[in-house]
């Protein structure tokens, strides 16, 4: 049986603006309009999947037909502090310099 849940709301410019903000993308009002149209087309394409009968289909979490790739807990050489200092846009050795932020982080 095909998915009978109601179709989602059409994509609004506000949603695109919000997603752009969450992704820290600087995007102009003109671009918001074009991106909304283009994203709506992508979502419309995916909407076609709703026509399929997915009754007995398990969600696919990974396209690879493999599981359980694990590694032993043995340390290996990595990068040095100098490597990081060279890559970082700004540094206060041995730290990376970033814009002033408050609080302990956004997640965890």
């Amino acid at each position: 049986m095909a998915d009978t849940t109601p179709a989602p709301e059409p994509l609004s410019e506000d949603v695109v603006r919000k997603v752009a903000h969450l992704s820290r993308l600087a995007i102009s009002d003109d671009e918001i309009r074009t991106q909304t149209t283009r994203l709506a087309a992508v979502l419309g394409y995916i909407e076609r999947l709703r026509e399929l009968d997915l009754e007995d289909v398990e969600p696919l979490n990974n396209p690879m037909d493999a599981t359980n790739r694990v590694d032993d807990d043995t340390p290996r050489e990595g990068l040095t502090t100098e490597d990081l200092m060279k890559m970082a846009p700004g540094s206060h050795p041995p730290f990376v310099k970033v814009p002033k932020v408050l609080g302990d982080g956004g997640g965890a």
Partner: protein
Amino acid sequence: MAEITNVRLMVGLEIHVELATRTKMFTRSGSPACAEFDDAPANSLLDPVVLGLPGALPVLNKSAIEMAMLVGAALECSIARETKWDRKNYYYPDLPKGYQISQYDMPVCFDGAMEIPDPADPSGEHMRRIGIIRAHLEEDAGKLLHEAPGGGAIDYSIVDYNRAGTPLLEIVTQPDFRTADEVVAFARQLRNVCRFLGVSEGVMQKGHMRFEPNINTIVDTSDGREIRTPIVEIKNLNSFRAVQRAIEYEYAHQPKRWQKDGVEMASGRKTTRGWDDVKGVTVMQREKEEAHDYRYMPDPDLLPLVIDDAWRESVVSRLPELPHARAKRYEHDYGLSAKEASALTDERDLCFYYEACVECVGAQGVQADVAGKQAANVVLQAGAKRANERGVGAWELGISPQQIAGIIKLRLGDEIGSSAADALFEALCESDEEAAAAAQRLNLLQVKDEGQLAAWCQAVIDDPANAKVVEDVRGGKEAAVGRLVGGVMKVSGGKADAKAVKEKLIELLKA
């Protein structure tokens, strides 16, 4: 306005435990939660996966998943047959990849419980069962600093990525706690369990465990209403004291907040606060992004994980005897009180030390129950007293389990008295000598010589200061003889056998 007639507290707890694997969750860079790397210089535990460089691919650490399974088993959880990894997207400078790898809807452990002794029950026998909703694995972020090392002011922030990618087990309880004491008892016990399991050293100052209580209150009013105040989550508490104080603060303040603003619990009204330890208050924090704004998605770089029966059994079979089970065994096999048993199991290092003592005493042919009881007496009396005075653990006093077994052997053979045993304990804290040799050298062995014993007893009987007591004993008040025994012990410098002294005194006085 109606008056508040009663306030009940309701708390659920989230606990982050940094698992002490040698390497990180998804790469083999050294991990600062492991003692081997915990003093690594800033930004020295790095590789392309830690920094989220293009093309870097994560590979799961087998130890991390097995440690998570062990904790799950200890918390009576079901272990997932299949689990997967999800990206939690947000931008913050301590998160190099722009997402955290976590487990969204298929946690590795779920539906468990842990019982704690009810802090409100002085007998320690009534238990409270705290439900565990889930325990899932994720990776830690780096550490942001807002001043230069040494405290210099800077007008930017700086980041150390050593901690980025360290395995974190996030344990979420049901809102089953009714007092701050229960939360702290649970938190302490969980720390102890993790230490027994060997999955964390549980050093709070190093952030090995962090607590986030979700707190609200149920307020009864004089007009018969029952109000639930909005849930407040307190972020990142890293001491038991802070957990206790932050919860008590919210317990006191939530009803007042409701009286002022009338806001009740509802979806979307949860707020996040931090704890200011200096001022002793909770403070409002930046609003957390709504859960769906994290745009969780399965991580395409990682394969799902299937935990079959054989793997699960092989990990669960490594589960050591847990502190509570050990305490019950001590009570049953050694005849210890519940209080003694819990004092010996509340701290892993003390517990292992005690068990080494019991084994050494047993190795001398002493029956197991006697060995257990005698070792408990020495560790909890002579040991705990000095440990307390010196601010160290009893296992750190410098006296070995073999030496303690030696003291117990001398005691059981009536070769030293109780005060001599204490003096011997003191001496052995500073010496590697065998107990018997030290007792000999320090002249602590009991004098068994009948003539010497009789002479000490006679001297005490003849002392005019004791005339009244002597008369009482002769008159039939045998209980009064204790005073005279004390006198003889003093005269002998503690070297007389108190039991023999008592017999000798009665013999002399009845003659």
